[in-house]
């Protein structure tokens, strides 16, 4: 058995030096300078790295775990951009827990992008899983610097089997890590390959060819520089208000249900706004999830009307060819009329006027109907009521108390009451009749029946010609 020779006995065969442990006698009387210096330096380093400056750190704001979701990803406290603040001429360092803002700094510039105005993008969602890919592509397509946009979602009252929230979490994580485009493209490929196509997609073959081409181009590369950049922050709120009204086209648009529905939607919007708004936001942009195409520069385009505080574009939607190719969609943007005021005077305190229904003949001028296809995109008109599909408003409007009334205000609720409230408080509300964003087309029951009838006819013709 081989054993290392560790005894100091001298042998006949000279054993190699390295096998012997170094004798301590070798050190002699030399002072152990290097070890001491090294030890001191080590202790110093340890002290500086771990113990110094602990007093300077304040404990992060305790966030109750009961409130946050289990799926919560990184949730850093988003602080301000003004920690060295000049108050009364003296530059002072404030502790982390104190924030100071001069609201005059956040009134919103017409060239907000270059002045680095921060925008709050608010998107209410309900049973929106199917349109999320569309919505995210539109969001990425926005040319306003993504690093200046805070996004806030509110997911509310979804049905049992709906996966809006889970899908949203997945997509937002991908968005902020720059992998969303890849994810969406691969999901689209997957769907095409597996050939999953329901009968509800049949209507696509009835749409105008030019329109289909336009949509296809809008969602194809090349994309602009800002496209895949992450946003400043994303907040996702969940709150169920107890809505039991269905989300199908026919359910939503029944006139009797409108008043209740609009008040609940107002409530949801107010919850989203009040939780997400911060002192350093200069603008708030409300956006519905089901816009199909809109210019990527929409925020900059709406922002440049410096005399206005609330600006909305026109909202139309495409139609199948047999229905006329296109039609006005949002009838909630209008100018008040004498007839409308008279109607309101004769209604009860809680009655809500809804546009586009024969029960409430208001004879108002609707933004949607004064659109001209080749009109000046910069033409702006004053409005009283606005629709909620795409609203850009100065944050100041909301700071001063304008919101989406969840009670009947001036015989309106939600966005139209918002327009009236804004005007009442002295803000200017404007609409662009020739600047259009396009809502998705959702075929109604009647439309689907028409289509199936035409399909059957086509099949019959094929059979007779084939035989």
């Amino acid at each position: 058995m081989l054993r290392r020779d560790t005894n100091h006995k001298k042998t006949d065969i000279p054993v190699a030096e390295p096998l012997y442990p170094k004798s301590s006698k070798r050190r002699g009387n030399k002072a152990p300078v290097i070890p001491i210096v090294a030890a001191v330096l080590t202790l110093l380093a340890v002290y500086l790295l771990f113990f110094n400056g602990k007093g300077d750190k304040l404990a992060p704001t305790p966030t109750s775990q009961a409130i946050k979701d289990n799926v919560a990803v990184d949730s850093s406290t988003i602080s301000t951009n003004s920690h060295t603040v000049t108050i009364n001429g003296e530059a002072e360092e404030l502790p982390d827990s104190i924030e100071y803002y001069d609201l005059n700094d956040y009134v919103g510039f017409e060239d907000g992008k270059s002045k680095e105005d921060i925008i709050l993008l608010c998107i209410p969602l309900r049973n929106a899983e199917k349109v999320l890919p569309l919505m995210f592509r539109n969001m990425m397509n926005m040319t306003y610097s993504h690093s200046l946009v805070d996004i806030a979602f509110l997911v509310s009252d979804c049905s049992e089997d709906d996966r809006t929230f889970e899908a949203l979490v997945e997509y937002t994580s991908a968005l902020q890590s720059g992998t969303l485009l890849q994810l969406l493209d691969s999901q689209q490929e997957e769907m095409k390959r597996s050939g999953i196509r329901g009968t509800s997609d049949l209507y696509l073959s009835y749409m105008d060819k030019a329109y289909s081409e336009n949509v296809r181009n809008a969602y194809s590369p090349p994309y602009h520089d800002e496209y895949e950049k992450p946003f400043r922050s994303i907040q996702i709120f969940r709150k169920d208000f107890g809505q039991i009204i269905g989300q199908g086209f026919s359910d939503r648009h029944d006139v009797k249900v409108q008043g209740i529905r609009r008040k609940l939607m107002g409530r949801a919007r107010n919850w989203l706004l009040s939780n997400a708004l911060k002192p350093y936001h200069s603008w708030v942009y409300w956006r519905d999830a089901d816009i199909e195409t809109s210019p990527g520069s929409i925020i900059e385009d709406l922002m440049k009307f410096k005399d206005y505080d609330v600006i909305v574009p026109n909202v139309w939607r495409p139609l199948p060819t047999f229905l006329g190719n296109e039609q006005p969609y949002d009838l909630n943007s209008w100018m008040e009329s004498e007839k409308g005021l008279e109607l309101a005077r004769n209604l009860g305190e809680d009655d809500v006027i809804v546009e586009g229904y024969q029960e409430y003949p208001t004879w108002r001028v609707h933004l949607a109907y004064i659109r001209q296809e080749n009109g000046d995109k910069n033409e702006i008109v004053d409005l009283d009521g606005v629709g909620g599909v795409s609203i850009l408003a100065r944050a100041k409007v909301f700071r001063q108390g304008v919101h989406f009334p969840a009670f009947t205000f001036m015989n309106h609720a939600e966005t139209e009451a918002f327009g009236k409230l804004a005007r009442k408080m002295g803000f200017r509300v404007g609409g662009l009749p020739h600047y259009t964003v396009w809502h998705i087309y959702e075929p109604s029951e009647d439309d689907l029946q028409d289509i199936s009838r035409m399909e059957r006819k086509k099949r019959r013709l094929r059979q007779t010609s084939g035989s």
Partner: protein
Amino acid sequence: MVVVKSPILRHIRRKPLQFVAPVVTLILVLYLIVGRSSGKTKGKYSYKSRSKGLFSRPRDVIPRNLPNDHISHYDLNKLASTPMAAYNQERVLILSPMSRFYDEYWANLLKLTYPRELIELGFIVPRTADGDVALKKLEKAVKLVQSPRNSKEAKFAKITILRQDNESLQSQKEKDRHALSVQKERRANMALARNSLLFTTIGPYTSWVLWLDADIVETPNTLIQDLAGHDKPVISANCYQRYFDDEKKEDSIRPYDFNNWVESDEGLRIASTMSDDDIIVEGYHDIATYRPLMAHFYDPNGDVNTEMQLDGVGGAAVMVKADVHRDGAMFPSFPFYHLIETEGFAKMAKRLGYEVFGLPNYLVFHFNE
């Protein structure tokens, strides 16, 4: 047993300090040059980074290099406002529009016994000369409390100070303030201040909002627990004022805030005759509404927990469940059912379906000029 043959590792084992010293020196050098960023943040990017190194650059005002994920989720379904507020760790937001800073107000605030780590403070200061003075004093006071070097004081969770963006009336002297013609404009301005403060500070973790006027200098220490304990959507304390009674030569108290009231038939009748643009304000002989005023319902021998239903509230000490504000109840700066500011707010809360209450025997005290 594995014998390590590498000469370097062998050398390290033999003379460890010879290896440690240069490594440690290297670390120290790097530390001094690059500096340490303070502020423990969970994110990859710290907005609060303050480089203390020798060659630190001045911080960017707007963050440029964004983190890969800056995502937060909040389940608002789990957010509640219960009477056992402290026990349930509910966060309270105390909001005070402040045009003058009173030391007694601040001292009173510091005496509140509700756990400070659950309290957030919000102040809004007008753009006037008075505001400048108030801001300076406020800044001094908050820095003293929140400073990490002051280990005696527990820290508030967060303090937000705002400077109002709209024009304000210049004079806030008692006599001027109360001239009837000035009331409408002044209260409209107050309403805007309150709304600006409220909607930018309320967050997804706020359960209660306590509106505490900056000139309330004396309240019970358990103010928050007491008001929240009644479990009402909106509840107001009775605001009185201490003074020296010259006739009786003794200290006494008198009602101060007359904005807590119950609607009366006469009040409604007057409202129906007014034009849409007019407002009714309490406490002026010109408009005799005969509304029962909570200020007059104070009973020194009565139960301090007695509640009464109200139609209008003042802003002295009002506890509001955060959900009421989130639903949209705000302080109208325009005639809203002929009411404005805090009274308009009470009306709006009622339109949203919430009940408004007052505590006639629960006193808080206003400053005496």
